[in-house]
């Protein structure tokens, strides 16, 4: 069909072109490449207008920089276009299903972004007199109240900057508590299915990590645990629900047993989403637990941060909480910033200033939006969705542990055995279907693990389509279409990347071509 200007209005039927052909620009329609920012500069371009400095006598003490820095000069539209183009090479929860197990990729409401940017909240200086930031301190205090109520714990340390930082806070409080009693304990028990941050944190606190194996049903082996307990055990670090997506049914017994030998119970709260409003960790004997605000309370992951990891504490550990913290008295809110008075036993300061305020604002907005009723609904829908996926795939994939799961469904790779297709290959084929792959090869205790966490944000239609796509791919794999998987992904901005090459010969920064000619010798000599 041609319109009256002689232009075709319908695609004409032709033979399929080869999709792998390269275009002149390297772009493919809406898939737009952008060279490195350093390859786009023209000296003298300006991206920020500002006043000319008044001529003054330098007070830099003779420390003036002499040579150039090497940054490129660009205009504002160039920079904007560059980063817009880059953004379009990213997958995102806003764009599609992101079932990354143990990462809780849920909807990130935009009201949270809006209120975090309000004048008087987002632009406060941390060293303003406390009389000028009463609203900010009230906000921190209010978030602390929500966190304590949700977890049923009496105290909370707000300053840790992320989950692993929260673990450090919790284990330091444990060590400080033992030392205050004049005890020097040496071991921390950690289940072998734990996140790598657990043993790394325990090691940084000077503890020897003693690994506890899992039982056949995916929970911690209670016999092995009992055997390893002793007067030299400082505590146990247990993720609950655990990394296999299961609730540790013996959790109260674990708490009692570790308390009996004088140790403390650290709970990794990475998976709190599954139990919001259904059970409070404080009722399970927990002494310390970090809360990833960027998981459970939807502060955006931002491509890998920033996070926030407040730590709720039992009465036994509360005196050792890090500084600073907010207090409330007759003259309103105040900050305890030094290790004295109310903070005499504090184990110290963990980061500059008062914590991840920007994340606090977003998390509190999220909690207020949900309320007590919505929080409980989160856990219910998250667990419902995970079980819906588990059942939807159970005849195609093997669950290493039977029965109801919590917020995530775990499968092993036994279906793929003998197909020549690995969990990784399957994941790359999922990319072509428009999904972000699930968490793979974690927990380490399951062969070729696939950990799928749908969260409460997903509709039944999304889940049905996902289940359909997975079944389709698994059928393809077992039907011997190995080549399809080995070549995936075909439709992503990049094909599979050479990670071995990247690690053998690390190129961690751009170097200007001129510098490469002149300084190559010096840079490689340094390595």
């Amino acid at each position: 069909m041609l319109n009256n200007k002689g232009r075709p209005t319908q695609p004409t039927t032709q033979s399929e072109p080869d999709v792998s052909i390269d275009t002149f620009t390297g772009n493919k329609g809406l898939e737009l490449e952008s060279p490195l920012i350093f390859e786009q500069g023209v000296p003298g371009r300006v991206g920020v207008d500002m006043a000319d400095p008044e001529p003054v006598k330098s007070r830099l003490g003779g420390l003036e920089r002499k040579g150039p820095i090497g940054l490129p000069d660009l205009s504002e539209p160039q920079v904007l276009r560059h980063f817009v183009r880059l953004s379009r090479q990213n997958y995102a929860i806003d764009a599609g299903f992101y079932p990354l197990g143990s990462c809780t990729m849920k909807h990130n409401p935009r009201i949270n972004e809006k209120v975090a940017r309000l004048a008087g909240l987002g632009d406060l200086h941390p060293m303003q007199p406390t009389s000028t930031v009463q609203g900010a301190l009230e906000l921190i205090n209010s978030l602390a109240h929500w966190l304590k109520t949700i977890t049923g714990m009496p105290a909370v340390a707000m300053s840790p900057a992320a989950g692993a930082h929260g673990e450090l806070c919790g284990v330091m409080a444990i060590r400080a508590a033992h030392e205050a009693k004049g005890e020097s304990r040496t071991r921390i028990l950690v289940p072998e299915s734990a996140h790598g941050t657990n043993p790394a944190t325990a090691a940084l606190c000077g503890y020897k990590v003693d690994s506890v194996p899992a039982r056949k049903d995916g929970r911690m082996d209670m016999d092995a645990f009992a055997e390893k307990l002793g007067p030299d055990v400082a505590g146990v670090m247990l993720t609950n629900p655990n990394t296999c997506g299961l609730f540790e049914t013996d959790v109260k017994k674990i708490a009692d047993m570790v308390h009996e030998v004088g140790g403390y119970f650290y709970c990794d709260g990475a998976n709190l989403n599954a139990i919001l409003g259904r059970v409070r960790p404080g009722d399970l004997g927990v002494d310390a637990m970090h809360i990833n605000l960027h998981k459970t309370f939807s502060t955006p992951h931002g491509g890998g941060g920033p996070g926030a990891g407040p730590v709720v504490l039992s009465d036994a550990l509360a005196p050792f909480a890090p500084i600073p913290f907010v207090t409330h008295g007759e003259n309103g809110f105040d900050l305890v910033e030094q290790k004295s008075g109310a903070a005499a036993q504090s184990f110290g300061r963990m980061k500059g200033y008062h914590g991840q305020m920007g994340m606090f604002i977003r998390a509190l907005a999220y909690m207020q939006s949900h309320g007590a009723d919505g929080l409980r609904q989160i856990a219910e829908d998250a667990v419902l969705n995970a079980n819906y996926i588990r059942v939807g795939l159970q005849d195609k994939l093997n669950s290493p542990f039977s029965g109801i799961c919590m917020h995530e469904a775990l499968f092993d790779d036994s279906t793929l055995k003998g197909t020549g297709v690995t969990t990784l290959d399957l994941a790359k084929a999922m990319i072509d279907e428009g999904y972000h792959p699930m968490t793979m090869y974690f927990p380490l205790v399951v062969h070729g693990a696939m950990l799928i966490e749908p969260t409460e944000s997903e509709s039944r239609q999304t889940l049905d389509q996902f289940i359909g796509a997975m079944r389709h791919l698994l059928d393809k794999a077992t039907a011997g279409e190995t080549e399809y998987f080995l070549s995936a992904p075909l439709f992503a901005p990049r094909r599979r990347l050479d990670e071995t090459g990247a690690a053998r010969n690390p190129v961690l920064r751009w170097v200007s071509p001129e510098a490469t000619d002149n300084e190559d010798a010096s840079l490689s000599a340094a390595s």
Partner: protein
Amino acid sequence: MSYKFTEDHEWVLLEGDVATIGISDYAQGQLGDVVYVEVPTVGDEIAKGDELAVVESVKAASEVYSPVSGEIIDVNTELEGAPTMVNEDAMEGGWFAKIRVTNSADLDDLMDEATYKTFVEGLDE
């Protein structure tokens, strides 16, 4: 003078009182593409069972434990620039360190080549 093996897949070649240590061809195959080898420092004393080296692939780091006690007298610095040697020539060019052995009895409980071969075959089943 012949190769001896540990159950952790290290090999030892004793010449006089100097033991050369590496990992077996089977081990390099299991590790996949080696991207880096962290070798010990010459002059350090090492005890049997201590960490001698770390072999890294993209997604894993494996510790290599010393099968003997003694002083580190030489390390394979070429591995820094060419970690692929561990994959390509595990039993010779891919050696990690040479140790002046304090007690040659350390080698007594190690496997000879034939026993190790049987041991590895057992693992693959």
